[in-house]
């Protein structure tokens, strides 16, 4: 057999190439990470500067003195903790509802054939192009007629439509990658559409679900305009509205704004850290990144 010689002849060459490629990839990833991390680091370090001082003339990485006074003021000047809890409550309902509805819609589109599917995908794309501002007044009038202005329902309602046409498209493309035989086999065994969606399709697009859940959470968490338009009592305000108050404090209080911004960013970063293992799993070939 020649296989004993082959490794000796071929292995030495690929290893350095492989190593170089890996090193280049790692270096690129590190640079990209640093680019994205730098603003976060500046935000956190800036929040540790003493409020009330004139702002530094140059980039000051390590404040002198280091203090948590900015954090204290961010949580006492405005009810930031309460507003974050409100945001968390809204996002905790919004995210799963958006995921379920978007996946239903995406699954339905993926199951269609030919022109019907093209038509619906086209419709979703058209919906994506409608300016959000064009819907402000009609939406407000509808919720006012329903007596729901002042409640969280207008903030949650988009989740009943899947959160965003983009989420529906993500799911539609993900479900399209599932071989038709898999779903047909389940149907032949008598499984209904909900059963197929829940037991067969959803487990195969876990990465997409992670991505949509993450995006839906951020969409709800960072939503500024709906709370501004629909909420009319301070006790119900969400975190973005409170950050806006800290923004008005002026240049001497940037540490307070940065502390508030860091506090409001933290849940999103934590969620990303928890969810990233779903993005990086080997099943991504079936999911949103694609094969």
């Amino acid at each position, binding site marked *: 057999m020649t296989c004993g010689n082959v490794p000796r002849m071929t292995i030495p060459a690929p290893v350095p190439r492989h190593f170089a490629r890996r090193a280049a990839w790692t270096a690129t990833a590190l640079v990209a990470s640093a680019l994205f991390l730098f603003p976060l680091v500046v935000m956190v370090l800036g929040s540790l500067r003493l409020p009330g001082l004139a*702002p530094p003339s140059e980039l000051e990485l390590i404040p002198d003195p280091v203090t948590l006074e900015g954090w204290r003021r961010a949580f006492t000047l405005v009810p930031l903790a309460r507003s974050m809890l409100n945001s968390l409550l809204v996002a905790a309902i919004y995210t799963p509802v958006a995921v379920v509805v978007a996946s239903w819609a995406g699954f339905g589109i993926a199951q269609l054939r030919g022109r019907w599917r093209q038509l619906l995908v086209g419709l979703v794309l058209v919906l994506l192009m409608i300016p959000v501002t064009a819907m402000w007044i009609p939406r407000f009038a509808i919720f006012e007629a329903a007596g729901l202005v002042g409640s969280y329902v207008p903030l949650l309602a988009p989740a009943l439509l899947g959160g965003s046409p983009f989420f529906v498209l993500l799911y539609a493309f993900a479900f399209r990658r599932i071989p038709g035989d898999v779903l047909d086999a389940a149907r032949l065994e008598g499984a209904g559409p909900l059963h197929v969606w829940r037991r067969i399709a959803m487990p195969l697009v876990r990465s997409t679900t992670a991505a949509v859940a993450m995006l839906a959470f951020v969409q709800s968490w960072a939503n500024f305009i709906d709370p501004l338009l629909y909420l009319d009592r301070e006790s119900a305000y969400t975190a973005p509205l409170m950050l806006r108050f800290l923004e008005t404090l002026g240049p001497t209080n940037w540490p307070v704004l940065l502390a508030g911004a860091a506090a409001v960013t933290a849940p999103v970063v934590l969620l990303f850290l928890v969810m990233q293992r779903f993005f990086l799993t080997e099943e991504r070939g079936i999911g949103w990144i694609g094969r």
Partner: protein
Amino acid sequence: MDRALIAAFALALALAACVNGGAAQATEVTLSVSGDPAEIQAFRTLIAAFEDREPSIRIRLDAVAHPGDQVTKLAIAFSGARPPDLFIMNFRRFGQFAVKGVLEPLGARADTSGRLDLDDFYPQALDAFSFRGEQLCLPQNISTQVVYLNEQLFADAGITRPESWDWEMFLDVARRLTRDTDGDGNTDVYGLGLPPELITLAPFVWQNGGEVVDDLEMPTRTVLLDEAAIEAMRFFIELRRVHKVAPSLPEVAAEDLETRFASGRLAMLIESRRFTPTLREIPGLEWDVAPLPQNVQQATMLHSDAYCMAKSSTLKEAAFRFVEFALGPEGAPIIARTGRTVPSLRSVAESHAFLTPGQKPEHPRVWLDQIQFIHRTPIVGTWNEIEDRADVIVEEWFYGQERPEALGVEIDIATRELFAEPDIS
């Protein structure tokens, strides 16, 4: 999963009901305001004092941070037939509500009120909120643009605070304060910071005897076209382009004017009263205020906010009781003590609540002395958009290369159609 979904919907409805719970009390008046946390806190104090006095009326405070956000919210709320009973609005933004006829005139109510004395209000502030012969809103404050100055930088240059000055002296002081402190060829301290906007340019035009619009009551266009206006605009623009006493566009982009002043790298800044609380916080910063310079006459720009009431409010009596209290001898000092505004009532403006002896600035009377020289912009529904379009052009001219004579023409071309938009009333 199905059960979880149903549970999520149920929770959403429960939460919605929870937030709405107890909202619709018969005498709960909604008040919409904008401001920083200290101002909002002052409103909470004001409301608490009012509710102590009038236990049968509750005030729901709907506070947002930025005036622009408040206008967006109000515009949508009026369109959706659910405006707040009361709101506080700047006079430059109030036109869009006035022309639509959605405001309840408060002048007649004030006339018959036993608690308000219209004669105590500065007439300039009342005038800014009257529209087509009716006093629609009642002013809460009246501020003007002044020159904030860094006393240490003035002392270093051997200059004393001017009680009054003309353009020539103003420019000379700005030149002497503009310095390259480390000798590297770059300017480290600029003499003057002035936001290149229409409302900062306008006082210079008025000081030179020019006008901004053709008719203050029924404007049809801007008229920054005559010799007086052109000379004023040239002076304004050359402060940056020729004399280099103001920072360049990249320098302002890197560090805004307020930050420069707060950190001692800008000797003078043209701003309204709103900058005062920020400066009071900075330890060691020595600062004061001076009037705007004059040329053929003295002139400054009005800044004023007022209580306005929605015509569709069903709680007008209760809402006006709050206005009476807020603008009366008990309520007005509460807001005045924030230091951010100049009271619209003479009696409060002349009191310690505003003059705050022992606190900076040393010469708060500058604001009161300038009230007699106040000019204002017209009340038209599109004034916000007119300013937005004009500001872009003023900035382009201030930092760019275009001929100063063409600035007025450009503003006229860009804004004339907005004056022609019909009122909806």
